[in-house]
């Protein structure tokens, strides 16, 4: 048995086994699979994870980190060949049947000063449909030939409607907490619709740094419920009917000067990105909700050029400065070159205020803001 175990261990990195038919209802872009099932329980403790800025000498420290399963985690791993939108692509599928993971960070410190603690608890996928993560070989199409002929990888993530988890932030004994779920309707107290899908989330290394493609989202719903500070309830929020076109991306890189240390970043959101915003009160019988449609576009002067047809942040950077009154310094734009900053148009349309359940209400109005945040603007975050 020991010899068999050793042989199997040596094959682990390449391990696949018996063929199994796919569930047609959930895997329309996949035509074949092989796979294994991974069952695990674990608890990982880390005393600290520290980030050091190597020329400004500041630091960010997360201490007493704990990642643990509450019960057995079950993940199906399959080799997949794409169909439909993923025709010609191949990858690996992780179907998370059970994902009972908790995460806690006891203290986040900036330059030794505490900002507070945070974590996630009660994560569950609901045990009905799996949370599916497809990792496709090949990243974004850098030469625009409609073929994934560059390496890197692409993620498609399908979050089932039953998924929920709690997020919390603690500060000196007070706790800000919320429950996140993805259900859009209930029947008899059971969620019968909802979920959200993130597609085309690419990851590549380019000459400028790490490039992450912002996923395309169509529809879907995210609810923030039980939003409270200690026992004081803040009203609930839903974000739904997402329209995030493909093409947005984020680049994280280093300065192009030897000896300098920073995280430089650009973020480009595809024009037309948006969602419906609903803010509602469930704590009394006279339930009212505030509705609006939020969207982000390029400035009219940028919209005609494919390279600037975005709501974007460019030539920006993150440094961690040392010193008593210093912290995480987020610079918008580059004041040395006078380039970059934030450019774009933000709209809040069809603002309504109505009782929950009413299908229509008189529109109160709309707001449109053309933004241009100039280089030299910054946000600095410090602990105390």
């Amino acid at each position: 048995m020991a010899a068999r175990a050793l042989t199997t261990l040596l094959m682990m990195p390449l391990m696949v086994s018996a063929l199994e038919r796919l569930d047609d209802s959930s895997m329309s872009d996949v035509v074949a699979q092989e796979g294994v099932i991974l069952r695990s329980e674990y608890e990982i403790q880390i005393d600290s994870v520290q980030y050091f800025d190597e020329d400004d000498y500041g630091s960010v420290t997360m201490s007493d980190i704990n990642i643990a399963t509450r019960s057995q985690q079950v993940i199906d791993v399959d080799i997949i060949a794409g169909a439909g939108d993923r025709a010609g692509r191949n990858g690996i599928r992780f179907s998370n049947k059970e994902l009972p993971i908790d995460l806690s960070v006891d203290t986040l410190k900036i330059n030794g000063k505490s900002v507070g603690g945070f974590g996630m608890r009660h994560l569950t996928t609901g045990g009905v449909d799996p949370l599916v993560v497809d990792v496709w070989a090949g990243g974004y199409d850098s030469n625009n030939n409609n073929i994934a002929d560059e390496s890197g990888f692409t993620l498609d993530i399908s979050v089932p409607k039953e998924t929920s988890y709690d997020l919390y932030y603690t500060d000196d004994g007070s706790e800000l907490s919320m429950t996140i779920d993805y259900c859009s309707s209930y029947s008899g107290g059971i969620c019968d619709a909802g979920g959200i899908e993130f597609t085309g989330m690419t990851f590549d290394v380019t000459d400028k740094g790490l490039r992450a493609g912002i996923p395309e989202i169509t529809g879907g719903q995210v609810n923030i419920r039980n939003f409270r500070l200690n026992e004081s309830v803040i009203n609930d929020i839903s974000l739904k009917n997402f329209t995030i076109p493909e093409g947005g991306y984020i680049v994280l890189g280093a300065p192009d000067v030897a000896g300098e240390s920073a995280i430089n970043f650009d973020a480009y959101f595809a024009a037309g990105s948006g969602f419906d915003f609903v803010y509602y009160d469930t704590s009394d019988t006279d339930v009212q909700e505030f509705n609006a449609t939020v969207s982000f576009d390029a400035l009219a002067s940028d919209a005609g050029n494919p390279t600037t047809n975005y709501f974007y942040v460019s030539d920006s950077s993150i440094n961690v400065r040392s010193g008593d009154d210093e912290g995480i310094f987020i610079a918008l734009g580059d004041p040395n070159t006078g380039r970059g900053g934030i450019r774009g148009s933000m709209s809040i349309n069809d603002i309504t205020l109505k009782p929950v359940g009413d299908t229509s209400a008189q529109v109160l109005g709309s707001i449109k803001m053309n933004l241009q945040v100039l280089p030299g603007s910054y946000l600095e975050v410090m602990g105390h």
Partner: protein
Amino acid sequence: MQSIEEESLRHVSGQSGMDLDLNFKGTIGRTYFETEGNTLNIRNFSIDTDGSNDDAINPGTDRPIKMVLDLVTRGTKSGLSLSITEINDLDLRFDQINVNGDQTADSIVGQMHSFGGLALTNINDNGGITDINVFARGASGEEGLQLEVNLPETLSMRFDYIDYGDDDLASIDDFTFGGDLTLNNFSIANSIDLTTGQNAAGEEIGGLHIGVITQTGDMTLSNVRAGDQLGTMGRLVVNGYTMTPDSYLTIQGK
């Protein structure tokens, strides 16, 4: 590859153990696992025990990795003990890992289906000792293997992930993400066994069971760079990593 040094073998008698000097430079063109026509491929996996001291350039100046192999007994367990020293400039890399994208024995034919490549270079034990013990767990109820790996106090290396562009003939569109990786006081002890059984729902839960006995260490990733920028993205330090005992992973076939 170099054969076991005769000088060392000459002194072996009984179970007193073996001293091995390994000087190796080689490449495995394609390693793959295939089932029902689907393949997971590792392309051009190469090992060089002394990366910056190539024989062809400096003949006779090899710096082989030194190994001492013994049969050992600890309590009721018996097994192999391998002690490794003088890791000076070990390179491990593969050019590409891909799914269903590598059907020939030629060099890389394209980045279609590729996740990219990975390189661990200039691996150096900084004068320390790597101990690897493989025990047969002989006690009743504890069958299987026990694998122990104790890395040297400081094991340093360069870590790089390679993202290839569409041009396979030129490297101008290939970029890397990586940094200088240092592992400190890493120690791993796992039990490995084949298990069977069902859970309360009647599902088969047996398989290759890897249990954690201990798993601890520290890690530093410095001079982090992506692309061709000259500066760095900072330094990341992980202190006091521990995976608690009784953590496990079971790998099942379907």
